[in-house]
């Protein structure tokens, strides 16, 4: 079997499941350890480096890291990574002195950005410290994009948004509010060195069924309606509200309805629960507020009486499901459900009516801009897309990552370098050994279950629209939750030449990760492991041949607890526990003058 190439940064990166799962590769275990030491500001800055908006994301991140977290494989629930991020943000000191300094002398490059959402703001965050002049055009009268206009303030308070957006705006963004870009041609003619399109996916999907036109006064498009609520154009809604769709937008619509006076809110789902798009925690929060989620109801028509909406007719659905897939669909009947208002929350799309189609910016058959998946460059060399505008609606953390990558592309592009000429990630390892049985990390396993987030009481939370529901972790919860992290970035590093094959590591390993066995091809070796391979997402580590017998050491990373016992038990220190630090290059790390030096100037 080919020995694993541990010099490839991906090898140890992939071991850190959360960091690998995070689109922006936030160094989760490192910030959790800093929180454990009470170093909240440092923990915040570790976050900010990669995800830019820790206070915002610590509340509303889609948190792909949590389903990825290894703790979930050896315990009921993963580490509350997101909640801990909020702890860092809530308890940090003033960070203004830790932000990059903005050079007085500019580099002469002007960038135009369309939309003041998280994608554009991230591009500015990365480019302003390099001397760029960044101009954001925003249609609305406040920056923040959907984070401000759609995510309700009871999940994301305005102060948190303002603070983190201002950190960037105050770096010197030329922010033009209430300035919608109406023509890309006109913008390009203004001679910017590059243009970044971060205009999001602003078009809510329609439901074209009978009665739609006639009932229009009481039928609302979810994202538009949430925006109207956010900007206080809408302040009440009918008693009985139906929400069509069961994604995260639907969850925000139903909970907002309750705060605007609705008494009876039903979320109408076409399919059974296992097919819901909303995250588990959003569903739980809505159900805690007594929202009823009705399954297997497909909208058929809006019912109008005397020119006013009175409710909707639904088809009752039945499905055959085989291994999580619907194999047959039947309509078994119909039912009428009364309603005063209906909110459509069935998805959103990008829309670019303001981009002329003869500028060299190509659009595909779905009318989406054609742009490269890793550079975000469109078919017009100086125009870049990012966030929801690039590949359709995703989430904040993806928009941030797009922003970082687009910033590198822009930085290269305006300096005449290839946008694909990017620095690869690096990996640094350093031992955490302090003494024979002492490590400079907390390697003892904390058996406690995930701490539960406390909420404002049901009575209290409805008094005001912007009462934040989640209270945040208290000191005890934080102290316990940080210990649940397994420190996956403290890696088990093996030196085959040192191993005397005494089996000590294999015998002590609490989760049977290790095997010493005869060399052979990968498939054959896999049949001889101490424990069966359960997680193909975590590839096996294979050592080179051991000196005494020529056998090889195999480690299955799947449920390794990073407890360090293998290294403690190894009489020759063939196993060592070493902290891996992933190096991610941002725009500022790319030396754009290298091209000029090559030319001899």
């Amino acid at each position, binding site marked *: 079997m080919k020995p694993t190439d541990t010099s490839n940064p991906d090898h140890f990166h992939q071991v850190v499941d959360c960091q690998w799962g995070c689109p922006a590769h936030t160094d989760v275990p490192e910030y959790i350890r800093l929180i454990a030491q009470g170093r909240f500001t440092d923990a915040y800055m570790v976050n900010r480096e990669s995800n830019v908006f820790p206070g915002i994301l610590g509340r509303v991140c889609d948190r792909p890291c949590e389903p990825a977290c290894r703790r979930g494989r050896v315990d009921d629930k993963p580490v509350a990574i997101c909640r801990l991020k909020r702890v860092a943000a809530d308890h940090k000191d003033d960070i203004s002195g830790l932000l990059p300094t903005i050079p007085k002398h500019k580099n002469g490059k002007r960038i135009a950005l369309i939309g003041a959402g998280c994608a554009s703001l991230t591009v500015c965050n990365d480019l302003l410290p390099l001397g760029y002049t960044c101009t954001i055009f925003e249609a609305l009268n406040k920056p923040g994009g959907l984070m401000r206009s759609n995510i309700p303030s009871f999940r994301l308070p305005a102060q948190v948004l303002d603070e983190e957006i201002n950190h960037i705006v105050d770096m010197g963004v030329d922010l033009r509010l209430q300035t919608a870009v109406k023509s890309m041609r006109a913008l390009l003619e203004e001679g910017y060195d590059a243009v970044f399109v971060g205009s999001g996916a602003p078009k809510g999907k329609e439901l074209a069924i009978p009665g739609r036109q006639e009932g229009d006064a009481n039928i609302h498009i979810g994202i538009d309606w949430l925006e109207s609520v956010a900007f206080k154009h809408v302040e009440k809604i009918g008693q009985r509200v139906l929400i069509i769709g069961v994604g995260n937008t639907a969850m925000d619509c139903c909970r907002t309805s309750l705060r605007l006076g609705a008494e009876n809110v039903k979320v109408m789902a076409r399919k059974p629960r296992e097919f819901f798009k909303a995250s588990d925690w959003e569903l739980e929060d809505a159900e805690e507020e007594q929202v009823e989620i009705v399954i297997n109801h497909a909208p058929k028509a809006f019912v109008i009486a005397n020119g006013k909406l009175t409710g909707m007719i639904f088809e009752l659905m039945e499905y055959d499901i085989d291994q999580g897939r619907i194999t047959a669909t039947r309509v078994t009947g119909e039912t009428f459900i009364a309603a005063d208002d209906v909110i459509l929350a069935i998805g959103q799309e990008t829309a670019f009516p303001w981009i002329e189609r003869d500028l060299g910016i190509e659009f595909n058959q779905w009318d989406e801009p054609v742009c490269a998946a890793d550079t975000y460059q469109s078919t017009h060399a100086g125009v870049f897309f990012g966030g929801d505008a690039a590949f359709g609606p995703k989430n904040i953390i993806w928009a941030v990552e797009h922003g970082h990558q687009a910033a590198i592309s822009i930085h290269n592009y305006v300096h005449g370098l290839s946008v694909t000429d990017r620095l690869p990630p690096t990996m640094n390892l350093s031992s955490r050994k302090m003494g024979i049985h002492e490590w400079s990390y907390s390697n003892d396993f904390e058996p406690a279950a995930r701490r539960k987030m406390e909420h404002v009481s049901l009575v209290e939370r409805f008094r005001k629209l912007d009462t934040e529901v989640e209270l945040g972790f208290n000191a005890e919860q934080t102290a316990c939750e940080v210990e649940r992290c397994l420190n996956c970035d403290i890696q088990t590093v093996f030196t085959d030449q040192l191993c005397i094959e*005494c089996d*000590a590591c294999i015998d002590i390993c*609490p989760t*049977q990760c290790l095997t010493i066995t005869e060399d052979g091809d990968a498939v054959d070796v896999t049949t001889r492991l101490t424990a069966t391979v*359960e997680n193909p997402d975590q590839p096996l580590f294979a050592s080179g041949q051991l000196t005494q017998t020529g056998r090889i050491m195999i480690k299955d990373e799947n449920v390794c607890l990073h*407890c360090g016992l293998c290294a403690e038990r190894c009489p020759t220190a063939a196993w060592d526990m070493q902290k891996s630090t992933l190096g991610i290059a941002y725009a500022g790390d790319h030396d754009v003058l290298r091209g000029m030096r090559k030319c001899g100037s």
Partner: protein
Amino acid sequence: MSFITKPKVSWSGQKKNALGMTLNDYEGGLSTLCAGCGHDSITAALVQAFWELALKPEQVIKLSGIGCSSKTPAYFLSGAHGFNSVHGRMPSVATGAQAARRDLIAVGISGDGDSLSIGFGQFAHAIRRNLNVLYIIENNGVYGLTKGQFSASADPGSSNKKGAKNLNQAINPVAIAITLGGSFAARSFSGDKQQLVPLLKAGLMHPGCAVIDVISPCVTFNDHVGSTKSYAWTRDHLHASSAADFVPPATEIIVDYAAGETTNVELHDGSTIRLKKLDPEFDPSSRSRTLEYLEARRADNEIVTGLLYIDAEMPSFHDIAGTAQQPLTTFDFDQLNPGAEALQQLQKNMR
């Protein structure tokens, strides 16, 4: 040893035995032996063997004497009965335990010092009585616990950590066991669980005294060049005579060896010990030829491993001594102590 205890976690795909128990359920306290000590591997092999046999820990009694090896019963089967006795006296305590509770499966853990020096006499008598115990000698050629003095199993000519040579002859516990009429004699190596685990299972189920001499390197005092009990030396000189396998009752035996190569030894409970010959020279059916074979290989500096002799029909301690079927702990006080009159009657009968 370590500062933290071994975490107890469960995960999807974790294997369970017929009793629904995981491997971790068969473990004991955290070992305080030196990191890399062969004894810890034997402990792990025992955990594996008990788990595979799906024995209930409370069905087992662990017995030992004194030494690093004799400490190890603390590190497996924390739910079992146990008695850590004095130096070299494990067999006496095991005899008592079996006399009182023949329903318990006894596993005695000893060292080369514990059994071949101070306890040599006890060792001999356990064998000739065919005491129902799995008798493991964790053999490292030194007194580990007392800082590495040569033991009686140290080979002549081998040197200690400081370079001094051993001039005495070595006691070979396997040869002793066969000579004294032992019913089960085997040798293995702590670094070879593939061989050791099936041997332990066979030994646990063998109706009599099953002696297994396990070469178990002492990393701290006897793992240097010049030692003949180090990891490297043992690996270089291993010579597997046979592979043994324990087959539980009512399991179909799949024949995958050529005829004549395997011997099936039926046990009373319907299980089988299968012996596969790996060396054509080896003949497990004859004591004298086995002894000759052992001597010839030793002369070639080879360490013969495998199940070297077995006779499952030999009467065991229980047959010979007529021990009570029923555990003494389950008798009423009146039955156990029938009073002075009954004693006088008994004595009268003997006059």
